[in-house]
């Protein structure tokens, strides 16, 4: 969620501190981990807002476009080195994957973080972000589509260089 590692560590520390300070507000209905996640997210968001950051591009910039008959404006090419059973990218691209991930708007990046990386359920993610489960699903699908679009040129360039 935060790009620099020390910021992330600070955020975790702050989150645990505020968790301890607000223990009395923990009502026991939500899972403790969800509750701490929520605090962690709020702390991260606060830090992000307070830090000068380049303006975000809207998610729509990264979504596919279609012609009138519903075909994609540009057909999707086959990505090299993946197939249906084992769709994965070479580990050497990890650095670039992280860099592209940072391009996503915060509101969408956080959903991929919680669902696909932290492994929270749709419901847990909705509770942590205080949004509906439908909103989680919409954001997750758009975030994955945007990430796919951001990774495509890298994956295709990788093929050229091989």
């Amino acid at each position, binding site marked *: 969620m935060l790009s620099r*590692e020390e910021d*992330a*560590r600070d*955020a*975790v520390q702050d989150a*645990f501190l505020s*968790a*301890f300070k607000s*223990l*009395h507000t*923990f009502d026991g209905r939500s899972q*403790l*981990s969800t509750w*701490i996640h929520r605090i962690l997210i709020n702390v991260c968001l606060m830090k992000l807002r307070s830090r000068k950051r380049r303006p975000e591009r809207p998610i729509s910039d990264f979504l*596919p476009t*279609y012609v009138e*008959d*519903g*075909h*994609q404006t540009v*057909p*999707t*090419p*086959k*990505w090299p080195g*993946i*197939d*249906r059973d084992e*769709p*994965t*990218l070479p*580990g050497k*691209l*990890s*650095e670039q*994957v*992280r860099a592209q*991930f940072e391009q996503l708007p915060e509101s969408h990046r956080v959903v*991929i*973080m919680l669902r*696909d*990386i932290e492994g929270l359920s749709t419901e847990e993610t909705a509770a942590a972000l205080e949004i509906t489960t*439908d909103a989680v*699903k*919409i954001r*997750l*699908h758009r975030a*994955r*589509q945007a*990430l*796919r679009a951001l*990774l*495509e040129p890298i*994956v295709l360039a990788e093929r050229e260089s091989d």
Partner: protein
Amino acid sequence: MFNPSTFKSGPDGITCRDVIETLMAYIDGELSPHDRAEIEKHLSICRSCVNYLESYRASVRAAAEAMRSHSPPTPMPDDLVRAILKARNTFDRPDASSPNAPPTP
């Protein structure tokens, strides 16, 4: 997200847009058998959508692998959860340590 009322197939079946917009529900097995069959029919004749599906899944996996391999901030250890729970009980009953405290309701 996916609204079945917009999922009307033309003479050539559903469109690439229909497939791509319902892809997550398809992958998660949340579509009706009818809609699932429509998607699979389209995938059997549309290379672009097959490529989209494969690259979508590859992207999800790549993100998870890239972020996990990059030491995450700090995992929350079970001990810490227990410590917080224990501390919470203490906070809830500040006089619990006092022998003369009235029983908590």
